């Protein structure tokens, strides 16, 4: 984008504008996402619990319930306990939010639709998400409340431990792809669903579940929500927070839920590539026409968001079903189960890729971009994808009405 | 074992400690002197064919009529009874012990009557005695932690005494 703007603006201004546009777009995603996901959580939990959930605000389904709640929270007094460490108490929610917000920067929403195309995107996201714990720890420490301190201590112990298996799990798709570039990883899984890394080999399948468990734990969702365990610690680290600051913690929580789900979608579920190669059937992805490419990306975006939302919904389902673990059991789950299984999966995936470099389903490796692993520039990528697509036997085939129908259900 | 046999056996064992026995009452009861209470209770709990291992309840009853006109017709001398309801889970039997105490020790108002604590025999007596102390004003000697349990610690008076008057104010809260 910056390159495009440079044609009209001075370089520094062009970059600044591009950055601003990206930042605002991501902020919209984060804020809007939080609004939608809190609404979704209430609706999902309501349905799980034989209730209706919100029904009034904003029409039949209570669409605007979260917005109404947000307005209420804004009008609430911003309380600060007398015993709190004032400055840390005030900045803690923003530290949390920033950490999960920054993770979006490297997250591709569709083929090439990414704020900053990092070639170490996986590493970046995992590292940045780990920073969220600082906000929680600061909040717990600075609140001047013993319950908050308990929450912070638990969070610190838990998140730091779960980073280990989480890291190992994330490395497995990276190992198969040979790159940390999320865009490239996504492109490699183009085509049919069996090209997804989830089905690459049995080990990745196992590793995905470990990843999801660890991701749930690292974003503090039940049954690992020890830091805010309301039946034990009142509200844990955010006991003393109210109003906007409290809601910022919520935004951070929900946006990191989305990030880990989206990361799972890219690493294991093909990102924006559907279970069926519809964009190829329609001839959109392979077309040289930028508009067609744009439409393909839009469809991919919907696909990708659908997967992320499914992941988040799954987390909600788990949350409203299971009791909470105890702190020692949380640590035992991590150290006794998650880490060894992840390590086993990692070793297995190494051996598997060594023995069957093409993956589980070899006949369809046409869809796998193999020839260009080291992609440094977007241009090279699109070139690669078009060249791969032009050799594909399915390209441009069957782009009729039949495929259109599939779109609706995609 | 019939009631009379049982009482005879206790009387043989404890002699003077058992003062009155009422086997005709709805719940037959035995009156015990405070001095003999502890030994009797231990005996009742540990004897293999008695095994009153559960203390159901300790209740204080204030026999007192504040209205002087009615007091003449009340039919009792002012006193406080501490009633122990025991039951045996082994033999499925129950027993009532009563201890009669003066309303004030040595007839000096404010001087709580004393009875030995049975919390060393049944742990549940701990809280029950605290409650009786709190509301009825009976001092249980040798109780490990005789504090008020239901009322705040700085509360004055014992609410279940018949002559208790609700304070007009407690920490700025209107009482009456």
């Amino acid at each position, binding site marked *: 984008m910056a390159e495009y703007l440079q044609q009209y603006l001075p370089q520094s201004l062009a970059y600044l504008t591009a950055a601003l546009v990206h930042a605002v777009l991501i902020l919209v995603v984060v804020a809007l996402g939080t609004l939608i996901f809190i609404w979704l959580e209430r609706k999902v939990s309501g349905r799980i619990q034989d209730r209706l959930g919100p029904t009034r605000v904003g029409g039949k389904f209570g669409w605007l319930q979260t917005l109404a709640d947000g307005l209420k929270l804004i009008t609430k007094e911003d309380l600060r306990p007398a015993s709190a460490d004032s400055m840390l108490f005030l900045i803690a929610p923003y530290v949390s939010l920033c950490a999960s917000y920054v993770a979006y920067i490297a997250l591709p929403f569709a083929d090439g639709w990414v704020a900053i195309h990092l070639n170490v995107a996986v590493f970046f996201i995992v590292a940045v998400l780990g920073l969220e714990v600082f906000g929680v720890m600061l909040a717990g420490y600075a609140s001047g409340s013993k319950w908050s301190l308990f929450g912070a*201590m638990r969070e610190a112990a838990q998140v730091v431990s779960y980073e280990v298996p989480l890291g190992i799990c994330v490395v497995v798709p990276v190992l198969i792809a040979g790159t940390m570039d999320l865009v490239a990883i996504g492109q490699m899984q183009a085509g049919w669903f069996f090209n997804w890394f989830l089905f690459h080999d049995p080990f990745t399948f196992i590793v995905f579940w470990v990843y999801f468990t660890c991701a749930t734990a690292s974003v503090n969702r039940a049954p690992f929500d020890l830091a805010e365990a309301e039946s034990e610690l009142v509200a844990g680290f955010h006991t003393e927070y109210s109003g906007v600051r409290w809601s910022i913690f919520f935004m951070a929580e929900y946006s990191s839920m989305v990030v880990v789900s989206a990361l799972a979608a890219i690493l294991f579920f093909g990102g924006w590539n559907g279970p069926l190669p519809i964009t190829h059937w329609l001839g959109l992805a392979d077309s040289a026409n930028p508009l067609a490419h744009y439409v393909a990306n839009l469809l991919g975006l919907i696909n990708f968001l659908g997967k992320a939302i499914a992941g988040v919904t799954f987390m909600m389902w788990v949350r409203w079903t299971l009791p909470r673990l*105890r702190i020692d059991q949380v640590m035992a789950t991590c150290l006794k189960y998650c880490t060894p299984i992840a390590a086993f999966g990692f070793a297995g995936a190494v051996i598997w890729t060594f023995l069957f470099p093409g993956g589980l389903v070899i006949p369809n490796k046409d869809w796998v971009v193999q020839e260009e692993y080291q992609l440094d520039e977007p241009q090279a990528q699109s070139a690669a994808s078009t060249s791969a697509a032009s050799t594909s036997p399915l390209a441009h085939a069957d782009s009729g009405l039949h495929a259109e129908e599939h779109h609706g259900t995609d | 074992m019939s009631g009379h046999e049982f009482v005879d056996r206790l009387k043989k064992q404890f002699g003077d400690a058992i003062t009155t026995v009422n086997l005709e009452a709805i719940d037959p009861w035995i009156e015990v002197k405070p001095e003999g209470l502890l030994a009797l209770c231990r005996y009742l709990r540990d004897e293999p064919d008695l095994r009153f*291992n559960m203390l*159901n309840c300790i*209740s204080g009853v204030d026999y007192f009529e504040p209205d002087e006109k009615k007091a003449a017709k009340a039919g009792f001398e002012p006193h406080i009874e501490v009633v122990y309801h025991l039951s045996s889970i082994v033999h499925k039997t129950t027993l009532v012990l009563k201890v009669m105490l003066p309303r004030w020790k040595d007839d000096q108002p404010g001087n709580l009557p004393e009875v030995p604590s049975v919390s060393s025999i049944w742990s*549940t007596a701990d809280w029950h005695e605290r409650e009786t102390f709190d509301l009825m004003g009976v001092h249980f000697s040798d109780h490990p932690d005789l504090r008020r*349990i239901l009322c705040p610690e700085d509360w004055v008076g014992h609410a279940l005494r018949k002559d208790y008057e609700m304070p007009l104010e407690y920490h700025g809260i209107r009482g009456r």
Partner: protein
Amino acid sequence: MATQTDDPRIIEFDVRTDEMLVNMGPQHPSTHGVLRLVLRTDGEIVSEATPHIGYLHRCAEKIGENLTPRQWIPYTDRMDYLAGMNMNLGWSLAVEKLMNLELPEKARHLRVLIAEMNRIASHLVGMGAYGLDLGTFSPFLYAFREREKILDLFEEVCGARLTYSYITVGGATADLPPGWLQKCEAFLDQLRPVIDEYHALLTTNAIFVRRTAGIGVLSAEKAIDYGCTGPVLRGSGVDYDLRRDGEQRYTEMYDGYAFEVIVERDGHYPKDHDYPPVPKTAVLGDCWHRFYVRMLEVMQAMDLVRQAIDRYSMCSGDWGTPVKLTEKLPKGDAYMETECPRGQMGFYIVSNGGSIPLRARARSSSFCNLSVTYDLCRGCLIADVPAIVGSLDIVMGEIDR
């Protein structure tokens, strides 16, 4: 921990830690009302949990000394407000014992029917709230959904949903409305499969078992010593249920009813219901067993209600005439204990011949059950404290009275 700093070994090998006093309650989500626990913690480990009670104290006993027994019935509702019918029943029986009242057959079955229905309602709340204590929200609402139906039935019977004042001295305030028995049976029919859902969500849930099995083990001796009763006592393996072992006046209410006391004998629970197996990690007397006894008692109560419906509908005649509001009481005292959902609820009435008793005393089961907290919570983790206190299933209204 009180370490001695002059001991060089400690300085060298151990980081010096301090104990922290934490106030759990009286405003805390998992203390079931206004219980206050003062925890002495070393990190996550609780070395001491001291319960402080009295935040809901209304001195109901003093009120009882100024009202006639029938007038005090509404106050008994407010003791264990989750099992108001059982409270009414306990006090009514105590007064009837003092007055030596005999009740017609129909009143007996009516009382069994209503009391056991309330037991189901109460155990449902106990179960749901226990799930809440362990951090799962949905079973709570599933439990309340079913309880709501019982409350609807009760509402038809007496007009109230929580504080019923329905069972009263001499019988009940009214007969059951027409068609009520059919509704009640329909409710029981649809409750049966729901119980399996609860078992799936809680009793056999791996996380639930890990959180409760082997936690807060209460030995039978200690349970008796602390006067624990009801499911807490039976969860420790003591075969004692007042409905079978109580006073004659109470047990004859259940004459002819087929039921088995829910307690583990020789490693087995009574086999008259389908039930999930006891997990290997569960120890007799732990939180899991206490919870489980309650779950099985729901089934037992459902059986009893069915029997009561049959018997009640076969009886003709009167459902019992309530005594006059200012009925004179005979001189004397009477103590009566009944098996309430939370344990043995005792009422002691002393009368001097007037219509107003000289003393009305309530021995509450939760009061005694709670007193064991201090012993149970020693050395557990913070997360176990709600698990243990929740498994005792206390109601503060009953403790503080």
